[in-house]
């Protein structure tokens, strides 16, 4: 299409001048941006006096992340729930004049020292520019001690690992996360960590001290146990949809000749339109690597892993959605594997999750994923055939398929651009031109057939 060849409008300069004037006006009315704005937390009830929010080495990324540590109640990880960038939101914290405002559970932590007090927030109200929410959820201390138990250097060295005392491991942990050190002096916290350590370690009694050595098989067992617990309550709906339903979806085109068609087709439509219960306004800082699908799509995967509400939602949905068409047990196996890979990708260092996965796939671990693997291989084959069939067919089906593949966002962007382009083109099109487009020109030769090009 033809392009406009205008030169930059000289007018623009003038306009920007005006704009700056306006913006300074606004600055007079509004307070300037706070450099370090307050944050909104949802913290557990009944934390002890010594509870702190501190930076601890993250077991996944070996960088520091904030955790809530309470000597009595253990560790809580902080998950940031934020509004998606496409729909910016803010918090309006209204002034609550009632007496029990503190008992509501939502405490406003003030990180800024400008002479303002918490009381000021609660009486005057406050607008938080970013609608972020930090939610504290319990985390197994096991995951926090894991980096200390399985240092990267040890993983590389193939030799037998040494037994070390719990003290040594705790020291290691404290050196990695210095903020934790004072809290580790607390006896109840130490015993809690050591108890969890014992779950994944071989232990040897040496005098009055217990020595620990990490055992990968035990880590796997512990993880499997956690994963099983996760699947028992049902995976969160978004996870279930993305990694279980999608993965087990049978391509429709191929199935057309089989009887199951009716069962599968509605399943497709249900998946392509996300149900309203899905908490789509939330996104978490988790990035979920999975063997089955892309990373960024699991944006809501980490929300409310054990919340009662999510369980009920899943239950409701199960009654609405048609059953997954797969051999018995395969869906459960896939759920288990999904939960496992979620745990690995969220809480385990990459090199650890590698070896754990390797261990999990070997047959002697107790859980046999073979039927699942076979079924998935079958599906992959079917899908490939479906692609081949579709690429021969019309283009619209092909587009639909690519959308399914998760390239949706980029495609939507492209589509929007195309539509805009077309809109612009249409705007420059007169009514006459539009009506002529509909004219049947069959039997009419092109002008270039009569007149030669110059």
């Amino acid at each position, binding site marked *: 299409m*033809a392009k406009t*060849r205008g030169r930059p409008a000289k007018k623009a300069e003038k306009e920007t001048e005006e704009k700056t004037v306006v913006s300074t006006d606004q600055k007079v009315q509004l307070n300037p941006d706070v450099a370090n704005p307050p944050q909104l937390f949802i913290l557990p009830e009944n934390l002890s006096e010594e509870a702190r929010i501190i930076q601890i080495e993250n077991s996944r990324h070996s960088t520091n992340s904030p955790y809530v540590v309470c000597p009595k109640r253990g560790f809580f990880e902080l998950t940031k729930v934020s509004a998606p960038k496409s729909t910016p939101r803010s918090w309006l914290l209204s002034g609550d004049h009632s007496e029990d405002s503190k008992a509501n559970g939502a405490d406003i932590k003030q990180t800024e020292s400008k002479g303002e007090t918490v009381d000021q927030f609660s009486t005057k109200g406050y607008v938080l520019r970013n609608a972020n929410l930090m939610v504290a959820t319990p985390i197994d201390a096991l995951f926090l001690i894991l980096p200390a138990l399985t240092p990267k250097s040890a993983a590389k060295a193939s030799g037998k690992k040494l037994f070390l005392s719990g003290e040594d491991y705790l020291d290691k942990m404290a050196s990695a996360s210095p903020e934790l050190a004072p809290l580790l002096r607390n006896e109840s916290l130490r015993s809690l960590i050591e108890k969890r350590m014992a779950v994944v370690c071989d232990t040897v009694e040496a005098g009055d001290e217990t020595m620990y050595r990490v055992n990968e098989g035990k880590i796997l067992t512990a993880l499997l146990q956690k994963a099983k617990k996760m699947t028992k309550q049902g995976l969160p709906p978004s996870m279930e949809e993305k990694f279980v339903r999608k993965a087990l979806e049978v391509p429709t085109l191929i199935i057309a000749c089989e009887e199951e068609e009716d069962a599968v087709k509605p399943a497709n439509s249900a998946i392509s339109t996300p149900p309203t219960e899905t908490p789509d306004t939330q996104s978490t800082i988790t990035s979920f690597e999975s063997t089955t699908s892309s990373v960024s799509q699991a944006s809501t995967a980490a929300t409310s892993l054990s919340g009662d509400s999510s369980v009920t939602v899943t239950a409701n949905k199960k009654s609405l959605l048609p059953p997954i068409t797969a051999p018995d047990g395969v869906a459960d196996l896939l759920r288990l594997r999904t939960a496992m890979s979620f745990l690995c990708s969220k809480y385990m260092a990459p090199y650890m999750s590698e070896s754990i996965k390797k261990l999990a796939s070997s047959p002697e671990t107790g859980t046999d994923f073979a039927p699942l693997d076979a079924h998935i291989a079958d599906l992959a084959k079917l899908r490939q055939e479906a692609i081949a069939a579709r690429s021969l067919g019309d283009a619209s089906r092909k587009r639909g398929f690519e959308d399914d593949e998760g390239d949706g966002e980029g495609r939507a962007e492209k589509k929007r651009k195309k539509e805009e382009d077309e809109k612009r083109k249409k705007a*420059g099109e007169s009514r006459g031109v539009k009506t002529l487009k509909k004219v049947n020109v069959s039997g009419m*030769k092109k*002008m*270039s057939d009569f007149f030669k090009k110059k």
Partner: protein
Amino acid sequence: MPHISGKNQALYALSRVALNSKVPHPKFFNHTTSQPPQSTAFPLQSTYFLNNNSRQKLTCAIFSTVLEARLEQADLFKKVVDAIKDLVQDCNFDCNDSGVALQAMDNSHVALVSMMLKAESFSPYRCDRNVALGVNLTSLTKVLRAAQTDDILTLKAEDAPDVLNLVFESSSNDRLSEYDLKLMDIDQEHLGIPDTEYAATISMPSSEFSRICRDLMALSESVAIEASKDGVKFSCAGDIGNGSVTLRSHTDNEKEENSIAIDLSEPVSLTFSLKYLVNFCKAAGLSKTVKLCLSSEVPLLVEYALSGNSYLRFYLAPKIGDDE
């Protein structure tokens, strides 16, 4: 004072209307003032001529224009653009020293419009270098809508232009409006149209042709035009029935434009899309008469002759094969 001191200012204000300004716009001396301007009131670059009638004339050395075309009646250009805009979306106005030409095809490439506004139609016309003005006709229509029918229209463009400058001067009162229309780069293939000896040439009142097309359009999508020594027959057949209009040549001595002349070297019969013909008829306001030229196996030529040897021609491919 409202003078044009350089091209920057002209680009700056996309539309500038000067109303009864105390110090008149330099261009107003063309037709509004009789007293000579004070020499200090004008930018140094501008030059003036005094011709024998002591009319001041301004050549626009002010802009580094390579094209300046002044039309006494903006109406002509308005109607031409109106007639073309329903057929093509974007096209190039090719300006050279002989005039302003345009050739474009519709989206389906089955129809072609060829316009020529000869230099004689303008007063004055100056084109120092060939320029192609790529214009979106819908946008141009929007600008031309601001012109009164009897306004004086001046088209101006620089060398390798970004914009087409249009100035409308009201002849009665001192109103001057000026618009810059952004131009586009349009790749268009130019077809060479040979002079053809047509088997049949029919000239008739343009209103008559419009009426026939409109009437038959109610019945069918296509019309068969049959020229024989008895006359010319427009016939069509559709779902609800069929119909035909036959014209015989006759000469109206009182009103020459009402005459129908059929010049026939051999009988022809061709079928055309009525929708396109109706579209061509939008040019009926430009000329009292229209000329249809037919030969078998070649496109129909519908020509509206304009004053000063200028013309607006439409070509339409005949429908061959499936006669509906």
